[in-house]
């Protein structure tokens, strides 16, 4: 069980997405998942070992590290990636439900079970709203947890058992910040893609509805 599962899941979702949805999947794969696995993970690999405090007091380094990094950035992003990809499962389940229904009744109930209309449209819109909501939630949570989108070189720590205030140095702060900005930027890009897909679908189907009603009235 690894990221390959998420990759397969997203490939399955790709079939039932709109054009913008497919761009979203490509952005998540290439610029978030692949960058995470190929680059970001290694930067945070030894973060605890390389976190150094100017003190010999045993336990001080551990306590300070725990205070400043309640949840490591990298684990936070892993959670974010998983949560943000999961709403797409709703669409896959709905299409499977439709196909199951057709099989049970042994007749063609839908012109095309994978086409986004009726109930599937609602499910798709809900999944888009959930995806966007989760992205924004994680960004705000990150901002609150780490007091902004920055990684300082030095933190001053004065928790027991550290005697007085102690200087602690974070390893590779610049590199971590570059990747932090990159991942936040791709997160924002995904939010924009989700919002445009939402507006596109709502516009498309409201005009369809309006035209249908207009034609009916004319008849």
């Amino acid at each position, binding site marked *: 069980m*690894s*990221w*390959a599962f*998420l*990759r397969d899941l997203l490939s399955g979702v790709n079939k039932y997405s709109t*054009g913008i949805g*497919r*761009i979203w999947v*490509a952005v998540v*794969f*290439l*610029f978030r*998942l*692949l*960058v995470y*696995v*190929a*680059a970001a993970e*290694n*930067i945070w690999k*030894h973060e605890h070992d*390389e976190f*150094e*405090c*100017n*003190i010999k007091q045993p336990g001080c380094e551990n306590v300070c590290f725990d205070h400043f990094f309640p949840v490591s950035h990298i684990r936070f992003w892993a959670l974010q990636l998983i949560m943000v990809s999961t709403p797409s499962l709703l669409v896959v389940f709905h299409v499977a439900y439709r196909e199951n229904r057709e099989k049970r009744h042994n007749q063609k109930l839908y012109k095309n079970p994978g086409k986004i209309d009726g109930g599937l449209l609602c499910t798709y819109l809900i999944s888009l709203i959930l995806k966007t909501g989760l992205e924004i939630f994680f960004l705000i949570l990150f901002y609150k947890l780490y007091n902004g989108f920055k990684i300082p*070189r*030095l933190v001053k720590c004065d928790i027991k058992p550290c005697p007085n205030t102690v*200087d*602690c*140095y*974070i*390893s*590779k*702060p*610049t*590199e971590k910040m*570059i*990747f932090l900005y990159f991942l936040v930027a791709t997160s924002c890009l995904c939010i924009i893609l989700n919002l445009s897909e939402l507006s596109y679908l709502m516009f498309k189907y409201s005009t369809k509805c309006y035209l249908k009603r207009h034609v009916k009235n004319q008849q």
Partner: protein
Amino acid sequence: MDWGTLQSVLGGVNKHSTSIGKIWLTVLFIFRIMILVVAAERVWGDEQQDFVCNTLQPGCRNVCYDHFFPISHIRLWALQLIFVSTPALLVAMHVAYTRHEKKRRFRNGEKIDIEELKNERIHIRGPLWWTYTSSIFFRIIFEATFMYVFYYMYDGYQMPRLVKCDAWPCPNTVDCFVSRPTEKTTFTIFMLAVSGICMMLNLAELCYLVIKICMKESGKGA
């Protein structure tokens, strides 16, 4: 999840590339991605642990390392490879869109052979020519940008053996020693050379496509 997914995506694009495009893809996979994963990552694997400074001052090593290596070579190459491979997706999307349109026409009653559609090699003509050419153009831009960023960030392509650091909290100036500088320089030059070869291949492919379309236009005009 690793470079394998990128390989499968790009492999799909391979069918619709020119011969030079296929050579570029082979060079990318064997001499860049494979070398990165199999060799280069090991060389840079212990870079901070073995970065040693001539001081007992806690924090000095961290700060000096961060000052001289704002972003590790390995991560820069990984980003370069991802960005350079991305324009090929444009071509993949265009091909998928063309197939989708043909399928739609088939469903609306036009006679098209479905099996032939799946295995058809779509020729680089018309709008696809523009997509393909712009993807090559972007590839060249990304390669050049990353090579320049690398040169600018590290003042050249050589890894020094010794760097002198006086960032706080290091007292005065401190000597810091980089681990495996010769091996790292060798790989840097290797990756640079392959990057240059890839750029040459892209330029050649661009010229080939432009000449081909010009000849076709002049042939039509005559």
